[in-house]
């Protein structure tokens, strides 16, 4: 009696389970598909709008034109000052963030007493949680006057200020990836080196860093991707002048800042509007390339 009852229950349960299984499977499939689809759609849209620019402006004028005067008559859409602005700011940020990040990762992972390690890690991760506009605001009122004062400039709104700010924003990414890379180095390398009488620093420098090199490079690349894509903070503190910067003490305007600042005023369907999309393509290609290289470096060893 009991047995029959149980069997019947099981059959309906199995049917139910099959249905829910089916639904869940399809939902997961859809969400997986969606993420890929969105990327493709975004790129197609970007390409469609951006390429329209080249009906009125030649590719050459766009890529190597030295002037970005979108509302003069005739307008000039030279992306070079913006591209160079982005590259200068990024270069500066990387130069600051990489040594600092590497040192920080070594300190957190290898030197600080283990009981304090988690606090330092939390601190670095907290840095990532600060909204960029807040960082930009703080930078504007503290960093900008400081840079102006320190280097006796007329204005502190320079590439250097932007680089410093962005270096801080890239730090969490760089530190956590490099730290993971250090953790992935087999314990035996450390012990083997110590057992031969090498000191802590010798071990870090001669064994740990070479063994973690791919991870370190990946951290640097991903940090770089973050820096190039950052908009708000750089817009606030680099001076926003679309001229070719000649040094770290010149003001600059990045590609991202240009899009953010001008999108609102560009007439839809105008060359200006299309030009902003064309900048978007350039930006997309750069970040795509950086991520690709980072990915390649990170997975090469596996």
């Amino acid at each position: 009696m009991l047995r029959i009852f149980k069997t019947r229950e099981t059959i309906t349960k199995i049917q139910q389970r099959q249905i829910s299984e089916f639904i869940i499977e399809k939902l997961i499939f859809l969400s997986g598909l969606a993420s890929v689809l969105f990327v493709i759609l975004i790129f197609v849209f970007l390409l469609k709008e951006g390429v329209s620019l080249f009906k009125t402006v030649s590719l050459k004028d766009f890529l190597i034109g030295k002037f970005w005067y979108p509302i003069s008559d005739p307008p000039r859409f030279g992306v070079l000052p913006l591209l160079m602005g982005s590259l200068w700011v990024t270069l500066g940020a990387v130069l600051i963030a990489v040594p600092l990040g590497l040192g920080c990762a070594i300190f957190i992972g290898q030197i600080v007493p283990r009981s304090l390690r988690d606090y330092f890690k939390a601190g670095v991760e907290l840095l990532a949680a600060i909204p960029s506009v807040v960082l930009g605001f703080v930078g504007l009122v503290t960093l900008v006057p400081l840079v102006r004062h320190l280097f006796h400039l007329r204005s502190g709104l320079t590439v250097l200020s932007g680089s410093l700010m962005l270096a801080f924003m890239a730090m969490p990414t760089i530190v956590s990836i490099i730290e993971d890379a250090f953790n992935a180095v087999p314990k035996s390398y450390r012990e083997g080196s110590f057992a031969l009488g090498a000191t802590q620093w010798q071990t870090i420098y001669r064994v740990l860093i070479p063994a973690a090199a791919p991870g370190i490079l990946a951290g640097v690349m991903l940090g770089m991707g973050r820096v190039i894509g950052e908009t708000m903070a750089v817009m606030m503190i680099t001076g926003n002048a679309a001229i070719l910067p000649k040094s770290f003490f010149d003001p600059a305007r990045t590609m991202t800042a240009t899009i953010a600042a001008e999108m609102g005023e560009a007439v839809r369907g105008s060359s200006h509007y299309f030009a902003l999309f064309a900048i978007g393509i350039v930006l997309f290609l750069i970040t795509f390339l950086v991520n690709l290289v980072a990915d390649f470096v990170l997975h090469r060893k596996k």
Partner: protein
Amino acid sequence: MKIKVEDLHVYYGSIHALKGISMEIRRNEILGAIGPANSGKTSFLRTLNRLNDLELHVRMEGQVLMDGEDIQKINVSLLRKRIGMVFALPLPLPLSIFDNVAYGPRMHGIHKKKELADIVEKSLKASYLWEEVKDRLSSSAFKLSGGQQQRLCIARTLAVEPEVILFDEPCSGLDPISTAKVEEAMLELKEKYTLVLVTNNTKQAARVSDRVAFFLMGELVEVDGTSKIFTNPRDNRTGEYITGRFG
């Protein structure tokens, strides 16, 4: 007498891993350390070159004297140079064969090419690896077989010219032929160095050791000449372990 251990206690957090070990290690002997898992023999070894210092929450009481000098008072890099170690798994560094052996000397400030080349050749010859690798010193150490890697690790240890060499189950991952070669190297090394061999293989301890120490649950049950331990041990538990009744 090379090393004197006096009432040594080691704690990992709340675990009492070594409970009052007192013994002597004689110059130019091979001291075998045997005992079941968790008996403290590896902890003992890692205390001697202070590799235990790397562990979290480790605490040590008692004294270890090398040539009459407290090892806690010797600079730790210098101590580890004088007391080398060969690990259970052959673990070369991710470098070439040459650089693996030259790593230690370089860390201790030797940079002349000629001098390094001499040290590498001498060390590899002493660990019976030279003939097999002399034509490919610049290739990666990972390309060697397990047994060759272990002999490379021995060469690496010899290159810093230690006085004592600690072997932590050096043959646990090796086939019988490689094991024989490592043992042969050890017997040869005895002429110049003092060796401590931790092993799970009691037969190996019988083959190469001059004296054997039997560890059980953090205690040193007894230490005596090899033939005495294997034929007529003082403690019942030693006999039972050796004849395979436990452990």
